[in-house]
């Protein structure tokens, strides 16, 4: 493999050492317009399975290499060695059509944050300082983080409820990597991970649910209890605390030992996610039947604010976009595609706004103005 393709981001940049007064074009603009469409962000909801209530599906696998300490215990040179080994390995599956390696250690904070906002890397991966990198497929549906908590974190994303096809592609990627790397494995504990609670399959299956009607009917606590009974972890939009839930609700498995990957994926696809989707759809029907005018008022009031406002905070943007999304999914709003709302939910985030400006992260007021402008232009 040629080394020239490995570090697409210009290397003279030190991790934190950029003067903020010095404007620069985000190197990740190089990802170009492939961002967005391939992931289905811009597609409508009707052809995406459960797109009305499920924003996205995700599968993650944790893997570690034999002969190295785990990331928390490894030296800098061991970590660099792990990076080089993985980069020398042929990535299969979704990476066949093209892969971009990003040297995260040498990447500007705004670009690291951009990758996080696009769900391609994790929050701890943004903030760490040790040698680490991420491989991103050109269609942005797959990423491999090297030296996150585990040596490898493979991740795949798809819009709506599409866990089975994701799993199939994930297993192909895992097998391809297994040909070039030796993964740490124990006959009783399965794949070995830095955190002992992830051993076994090392899999995390999750779905980002959109549950605005359940929120309006104040049923989210019930949903949370149901999730707990099913041994699921529950998180908010970007994995933050459950108090910041809003209308978005991510459910994922906690058990990784004693059940096969396929078993878990089947349970999520056939029983767990459909159950939450059914709750939400029932709540939407109830809202429509009980008081359609009041539902319409909430939906169109939100749309009105988004079309008229001049300053918009992030939490407000997500709240109102969520209501508009509900209106679109119910057919109350017909002139806005669901995919546009999905895309805006990504683009209103700070690093996306910075990228659109072609510069650094802004201050709060700049961001609020830029966010309002972006949404007004998109929903005109």
């Amino acid at each position, binding site marked *: 493999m040629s080394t020239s393709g490995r570090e697409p981001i210009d290397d003279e940049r030190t991790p934190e050492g950029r003067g903020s007064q010095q404007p620069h074009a985000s190197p990740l603009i190089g990802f170009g317009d492939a961002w967005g469409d391939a992931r289905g962000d811009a597609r409508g909801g009707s052809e995406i399975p459960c797109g009305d209530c499920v924003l996205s599906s995700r599968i993650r696998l944790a893997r*570690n290499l*034999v*002969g*190295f*300490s*785990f990331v*928390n*215990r490894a030296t800098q040179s061991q970590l660099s060695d792990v990076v080089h080994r993985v980069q020398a390995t042929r990535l299969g599956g979704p990476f066949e059509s093209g892969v971009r390696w990003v040297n995260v250690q040498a990447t500007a904070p705004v670009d690291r944050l951009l990758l996080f906002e696009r769900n391609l890397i994790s929050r701890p991966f943004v903030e760490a300082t040790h040698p680490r990198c991420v491989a991103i497929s050109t269609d942005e549906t797959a990423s491999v983080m090297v030296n996150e*908590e585990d040596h490898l974190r493979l991740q795949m994303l798809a819009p709506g409820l599409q866990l089975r096809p994701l799993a199939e592609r994930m*297993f192909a990627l*895992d*097998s391809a990597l*297994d*040909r070039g790397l*030796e*993964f*740490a*494995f*124990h*006959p*009783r*504990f*399965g*794949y*070995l*991970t*830095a*955190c*002992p*609670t992830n*051993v*076994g*399959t090392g*899999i995390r299956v999750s779905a980002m649910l959109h549950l605005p009607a359940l929120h309006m009917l104040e049923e989210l606590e019930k949903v949370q209890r149901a999730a707990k009974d099913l*041994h699921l972890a529950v998180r908010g939009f970007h994995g933050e605390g459950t108090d910041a839930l809003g209308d978005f609700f991510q459910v994922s498995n906690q*058990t*990784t*030992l*004693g*059940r*096969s*990957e*396929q*078993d878990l994926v089947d349970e999520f696809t056939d029983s767990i996610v459909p159950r939450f989707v059914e709750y939400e759809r029932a709540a939407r029907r109830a809202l429509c039947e009980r008081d359609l005018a009041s539902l319409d008022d909430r939906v169109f009031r939100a749309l009105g604010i988004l079309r008229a406002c001049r300053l918009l905070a992030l939490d407000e943007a997500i709240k109102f976009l969520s209501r508009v999304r509900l209106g679109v999914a119910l057919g109350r709003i017909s002139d806005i595609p669901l995919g546009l709302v999905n895309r805006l939910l990504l683009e209103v985030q700070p690093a996306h706004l910075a990228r659109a400006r072609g510069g650094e992260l802004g201050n709060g007021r700049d961001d609020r103005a830029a966010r309002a402008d972006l949404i007004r232009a998109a929903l005109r």
Partner: protein
Amino acid sequence: MERTCDCCPNPAVVHETVVHSGIQTEVHLCAEHAEQRGYILPSATGPALIVGKLLQQVQSAAARPANACASCGTTMATVRETGLVGCPLCYRHFEDALGAVISRAQAGASVHVGRHPAHAADLVDRAAMRNRLARELREAVSREEYERAAKLRDRLHAIGGSPSDAFASADADDATRVEGGSAE
């Protein structure tokens, strides 16, 4: 019985016992893993003369607390404090303590079911075989077929299992199920 590598099913060519503060730790590695870990093997055939990494390990072991992982120096106290294990071999070194932690976190499950790396196919087969023998041993004892039980016990020993496995957990049978296909 031939000792296998700590990291893979290949026969071990490096056998070392490191003694520190009265705690004995054994290291068994195949040629490839020995080399990876910095051991220098003089020739493919001669006795393994070990210099380099091992000396470093012994020296740094002097600063290590008793009962640390021989490979990375992590102790169970560190694992409890940080919630993180130091290296793959910690799972061998602290097998019992970690087994208890894992089983609590995993709703009682204690045996992996699912995919496995191609290189571990042997390990998985042997684990399955051990569990089958252990189950048969349990049955033989419960039916008071002691002669058969003795034979099963010997076979279990021969493949590195222990008769106590047979009575350790009632759901040991689960280990014989290796689902989800191999990594190939």
